């Protein structure tokens, strides 16, 4: 970092603007060293590491099951998929089976949490552009999901729901109906949200053609999830490398097509997440249908002795792109090494390249459109 500061210390014409780590729209403790000439930036250097908690090291010190609550903290906005990634990796390492009811509950909880995560992403993005009203609307819907997940596992943010070999609890009585009622309520709300902000002229003018990321760039930078798909790459782990029981559900993969400007611009990234809401609703409905056929109570096969040896990697489609978890076991109760690959970290490096020539206001929109979350970057 010191080199960075010395390099940019005084070039005379430009102003160095220190954006963050405390700034209203850096979505957590992220810092950017911005060089501006008036409003136009010549560069924005991301400076990560303010939220590093050595989670991967903690994994080596806990038992496989004991590490599960920590995975919530890898990405606290969408904790379920991080749970899922760890559980799937350990199961793969130990060669465990998960009962179908457990798998369906995992899918339902993943998708509900994906909706909740996109609520935050889209609401905050609209707020960063200056429209404040979409945010409370998005949060209102997220509250319903928080209520539902609380009924399921007792927590509202860090769920600790998935287990090695299944999930922690079966769904309570009447929960399925409540989820269905919520989905019936939520689907038309998406149209309402589109009317409010997605197709707003000012909003489109701000985001269309802003920092477009081409497909090849997106692949080169290792983007994942909605950020990748917005750039026109039709790739979704749930469909293309199915895990859990995703192979049994039917859904579309929304791909950015440059409706309002260039392919892969910020508006496409926003739109992709809006469409993923619809797809998540579809998946949840199918899972809620399928779970009726599975016997009640068979949601978790408790592993008797968990001392696996070897290595395994599981890949999960998280809200912020592909989350993969690599575990090496040495035959003891703890993992020898654990590694999380997260979407936000890769997204951060795009900002350095794409911010050149943008305006300060655009930087905020770019950060928001990539949906980076500080804990996921640093872990």
């Amino acid at each position, binding site marked *: 970092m010191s080199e960075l500061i010395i390099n940019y210390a005084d070039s005379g014409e430009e*102003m160095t*603007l*220190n954006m963050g780590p405390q*700034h*209203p*729209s850096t979505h957590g403790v992220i810092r950017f060293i911005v060089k501006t000439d*008036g*409003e136009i930036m010549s560069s924005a250097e991301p400076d990560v590491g303010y939220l590093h908690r050595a989670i991967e090291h903690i994994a080596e010190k806990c038992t496989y099951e004991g590490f599960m609550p920590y995975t919530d903290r890898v990405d606290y906005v969408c904790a379920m998929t991080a749970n899922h990634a760890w559980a799937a990796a350990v199961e793969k390492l130990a060669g465990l089976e998960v009962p179908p009811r457990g798998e369906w509950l995992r899918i339902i909880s993943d998708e509900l949490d994906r909706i909740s995560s996109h609520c935050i992403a889209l609401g905050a993005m*609209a*707020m*960063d*552009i*200056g*429209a*404040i*009203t979409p*945010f*409370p*609307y998005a949060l*209102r819907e997220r509250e*319903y999901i928080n*209520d*539902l997940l609380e009924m399921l596992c007792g927590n509202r943010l860090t769920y600790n729901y998935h287990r090695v070999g299944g999930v922690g609890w079966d769904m309570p009585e009447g929960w399925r109906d*409540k989820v269905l*009622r*919520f989905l019936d*309520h939520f689907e*038309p*709300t998406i*149209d*309402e949200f589109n*009317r*409010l*902000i997605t197709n*707003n002229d*000012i*909003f489109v*003018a*701000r985001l269309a053609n802003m920092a477009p990321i081409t497909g090849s760039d997106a692949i080169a930078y290792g983007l994942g999830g909605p950020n990748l798909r917005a750039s026109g790459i039709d790739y979704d782990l749930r469909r293309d490398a199915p895990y859990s029981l995703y192979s049994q559900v039917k859904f579309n993969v929304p791909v950015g097509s440059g409706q309002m400007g260039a392919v892969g611009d910020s508006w496409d990234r926003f739109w992709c997440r809006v469409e993923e809401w619809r797809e998540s609703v579809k998946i949840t409905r199918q899972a809620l249908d399928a779970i009726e056929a599975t016997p009640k109570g068979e949601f978790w096969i408790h592993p008797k002795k968990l001392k696996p040896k070897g290595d395994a990697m599981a890949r999960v489609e998280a809200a912020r792109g592909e989350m993969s978890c690599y575990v090496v076991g040495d035959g003891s109760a703890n993992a020898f090494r654990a590694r999380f690959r997260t979407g936000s970290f890769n997204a951060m490096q795009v900002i350095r390249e794409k911010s050149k020539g943008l*305006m*300060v*206001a*655009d930087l*905020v929109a770019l950060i928001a459109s990539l949906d980076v979350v500080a804990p996921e970057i640093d872990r």
Partner: protein
Amino acid sequence: MRARFAAVTLTTTLGLAAASTLVGCNQKNQDFRDKVRDVRPITLERHGTMVVEAAASRPGLEYVVVLNGRWRVPEKDGWEPRKLEVYGRGAAGDRVLVNVDELEERLGGHRRFQGQVSVELAGDAPRKVIAKPLYTRLNFFPLSLRQSAYNLVEDGVEVAGIRLLPGREGKFTDYLGARLYMARDKQSKKPIGITVADLRQAFDGQEFMGRYDCGNYQQGWVNDARNPPPLPVDGEGKPHKNFICQGTLDNIVAFDEARVLGFDAELFMKVSGGSRYIDRHTAEAYTRKAGKLSAAGLKKGDVIVRVCGSKPSPMDPAVPCEPGEGTKDVRSVADLAAVWRNADQAQVYVEAQRGAATVTVPLGTFGAPAELPVGFLLAGVLMAAGLLVLLPVGPGAGLIVVWERKVAGRMQSRFGPNRVGPGGWLQWLADGVKLIVKEDVIPTDADPLLFRASPYLVFMGLFAVFVVLPFSQSMIIADLDIGLLYLMSVTSLVVVGIIMGGWSSNSKWSLLGGMRSAAQIISYELPAGLAMLSVVVIAGTLSPQTLVANQGGSPWHWFVFDNPMTFACFFIWFISALAEGNRTPFDLPEAESELVSGYNTEYSGFRFSIFFLTEWTNLFVIGAIATTVFFGGWRIPGVHPDTMETSFFWQAAGFAMMMFKSLVFVFIVIWIRWTLPRFRVDQMMNMCWKYFVPITLASLVLVAGYQWVTPTDIREYVRYAMFAVFGVGLGGFFVSRVIFTYRSTKKTLRLT
């Protein structure tokens, strides 16, 4: 450069030398004024200068001012006699200046003085007295404002110049130009009136000497007094008044010559200073105007017995000043003063006894003498005006804040403030108190002066607008002829304040906010001004009241529906007003997601609250201007302004109408804020310069042509058509969209 400087210096020096020579010449002949003429100011404060007016003093010389009389000692609560001598310095204009601080050391604090003030030439005793004593009352170093105000009132007010207060009889009053004595009945010794003495008569030196000049006619006869030429005479055989040539022409007029032609002996003696000759120099130096009493026609020796008005008491309200029943005898100078005070701006008639006859002399509208210094009055008036504006506006802005938060709450499916006061409507009070008691932090590296000054400018710029807002037909502080221009100019102060705040904070975020607002507000002043100009072309006036009066009460007679151009202009003006007021979608200067809080990031406490207050006051100002210029102001459909003018009810209704329309616009502005995202800085500038400015310019030309070419009745039909299409049609479509969106909103879901 140097040569020029030398020339200037030389000229100045020579001029000064010449001037002092002239003054010196005059001095010789001005010994008739060998008395102290005035001592001022009456109230002397620390570090002040006492000015003693003595005609014989000369600039640069040292004098001793002698204060001989009694001094009031507050500690003893009594008076003690004392003679004080202080050094003074002669100054131009026949004045001796005394540094008061030196006196203070010797007096040791607050003293009041009554007695004689004289001036002597500094030097060894016995000193030469150059100005004889004048009785004066002085007030040294008053400890409080109240004390000085009290003494000012008691001793007569310098500003007005009148000293017609009790106990001041017999003193020559500069204001009236006479000396007034109490006249007493010879037998009963009761006061019967006021005797006028020492009238100050007009004396025009040039005219006086001119009467003794004989011009070309006298050529050749200059020194032959034994054989004078025949005098030109008028019809009655008397010497022609414009051609009096008696005596010698040596530029000197003797006492006897003047007496023969009826010149006032007393005045002659005064001008000549006791000698029996007046030369040209003296005459011209003594030129003066007549006193007010003299100009009115009073003569020396007149006894004023009556002054119009009934009871001459300062406690009485002003009474109509007409001679007639109820008049009372005037027995003292105080009576005269009281009547004068009460008869402000009215004719004051004086009944005076002149010998055996009684004459009535109108004293004219001299205006009543003020009882308090003008500064006090001005301060009072300003304070009253300030309170008048601030008292309703502060809470008004506060209520708009609460309203906005409540509306925002409803729009975002939450409640908004509902804790403080009934329904949360006193939230503004709690917030205001909180802000006021907070610490007023000024960042270490900030420019403290500019940082402090910035909120004042913002505040002034916006609140000055209230001067020209027509709240109803009669409720306007000042209906300026240049109202709209005034409005545009004072609002420009706001941007100065914002730039100052942004710059002086020494924070990069503040600076960016300040820069943005400079670009934004200055740019959008153009389309806003041009859009209003289109209306001005139609109305033919810049005065807000006339603008309103020129519109009709019915919607189709509002300027917004006058023709398609004004309709477009309204929207451009409205958007520009949002931009000028830093409101969404133009809230770039304080974009909280980008610039933390923009130009006011570093402000806290009361200074921040002023930014806050002006921002919400601006909402109302936007609404009020929109209503005034485009939406018919206080006009009520079907009611003629003449009808409204005479009726309190219609005035109140007009006020209600104006407020209603303005508040509708306030609601629309709030609505927009909680709906739309924010523009980027380049988009905002593009919109202004690429679209708004050309459109408004074109509209100005089109409107002018339209007014010129189209007959009046066609214009009337266009108004109806405009209202039908845009008012009913477009408005109806908008309302239907709102209803559709409202209906399609999902109701709250209850899961738990």
